[in-house]
């Protein structure tokens, strides 16, 4: 089988070795999100230090796209100032829903997820972790 245009190597690499992966008990999860249409499930914990995202841990029971997006997100936002993360997160989600392109250099590995836009039913898979992060940041008062 030819390498699928959606399942690029970079996505499969994140799927295979998800960054920030952790086992999070239900009771200790800051955010516990389920996609009711497919059963994808993300638990997320985050902590700030001096206005920066000092810790992001994710427990993801999801498809390759969902897991890879979560992993790329951790890589992209860890150690970054909250003031930068929130607008980027919004722009990324907007782009995935058909909004304006985010410049390639800002996306990094996330650029590989742009192919998901050809499959409208799966855009949610690619944005779920970002919603979870957004919820966590609001809880942290960021």
């Amino acid at each position, binding site marked *: *089988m030819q390498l699928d245009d959606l*399942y690029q190597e970079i996505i*499969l690499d994140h799927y*295979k070795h998800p960054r920030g992966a952790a086992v999070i008990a239900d009771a200790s999860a800051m955010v516990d999100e389920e996609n*009711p249409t497919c*059963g*994808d499930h993300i638990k997320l914990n985050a902590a700030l230090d001096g206005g920066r995202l000092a810790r992001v841990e994710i427990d993801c*029971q999801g*498809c390759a796209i*969902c897991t890879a997006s979560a992993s790329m997100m951790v890589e992209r936002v860890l150690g970054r100032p909250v003031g930068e993360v929130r607008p980027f997160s919004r722009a990324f989600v907007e782009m995935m829903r058909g909004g304006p392109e985010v410049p390639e250099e800002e996306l990094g590995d996330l650029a590989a997820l742009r192919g998901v836009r050809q499959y409208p039913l799966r855009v949610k898979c690619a944005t779920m972790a970002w919603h979870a992060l957004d919820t966590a940041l609001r809880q942290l008062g960021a």
Partner: protein
Amino acid sequence: MLNPEHLRKDFPILAQRVRDGKPLVYLDNAATTQKPQVVIDALDAYYREINANVHRAIHRLAELATEAYEEGRRKIVRFIGAQDERTLIFTRGTTESINLVAHAWGNRHLKTGDAVILSEMEHHSNLVPWQLLAARTGAELRFIPVTERGTLDLDAYHGMLDARVKLVAVTHMSNVLGTVNPVREIIDAAHRAGARVLLDGAQSVPHMPVDVQALGCDFLAFSGHKMCGPTGIGALYAREDRLAEMDPFLGGGEMISKVTLERSTWADLPHKFEAGTPDISGAIGLGVAVEYLSAIGMESIHRYEQELTRYAVETLSRVPGLTVHGLAPERGGAISFAMDGIHPHDVAHFVDRDGIAIRAGHMCAQPLMRKRGVTALSRASLYFYNTRAEVDALATSLARVQEFFARATG
């Protein structure tokens, strides 16, 4: 013997090509089935020739529309072996039918201390309405456990059937595990205990002969779109004595006899439960659909699907890393499966690239998924127009998915 290749020609959509010219292999029939040309034509003819509101005006079109609508009802009554048109209420589908019973019958007959028995394999549509009823009335819900191979634990069922149980609401066939439940035994035991029985027939009525008189159920809920009919139409069968002890569900036009500003009296059965302008074209279309199914023969459909299901379970089980969920001896063609290390969403995506439509997700049965220790499964579900060649195409595609992920992530 039923000839699927011949019958496929009745379904224009099945000749379609998808995803760069691949022939469509439609294996998501438990979600909704395709429609034969005769049903599509019936909808078209209704709007071109006789569209009018029913049971109201006295003009010619109203007469024709009313007659066609009621003829649809008569066909469906015959199809499920009921005797009286008064016992068949048109709804939007199984979900609305069950909600109708939960409100119109449940509100009046359940109170704190009473119990409703469901099972762990119910679709959300035969679970949530009862949760809401329990919250309204204080009644308790009890659940028949599901065994590892996917059957109901009948000993546990008999053990929980006491005098407090007023209703047993179970699925005739599981939309996830494919299990066909021994509903005759379940109904007889419930009746001996003084409880009423609702059958969720969404997955059984389309695939096997279902005779409400022979089964003796009090209520049967089913959907038109899962049996060659249009979306937006379904039905509730209820024994006439049950209907007589039910309050109206929705209030409005059509369901009344006499209305003053202060109060109203109700129309005769079944109109008492059909408020507002109904889905007229849907009822006509569903009537044509059951006629179409009857012409093939529900026995033939059932026999053919049994054979195809056996073949599909065997064939899929040979795919490396694939586990079929649901190994009940009595089963229909809803076949759910897991693949080692590959999420169902990814599975469904890959086979879709080969033009094959299957379902991935929790299939509206989250408690059952939790019980089986999974968050989601993939499901292929068959109908009489599916073929062994299509099952083979799915198996080949799944083996390639397995290979791809093994190489990419191994």
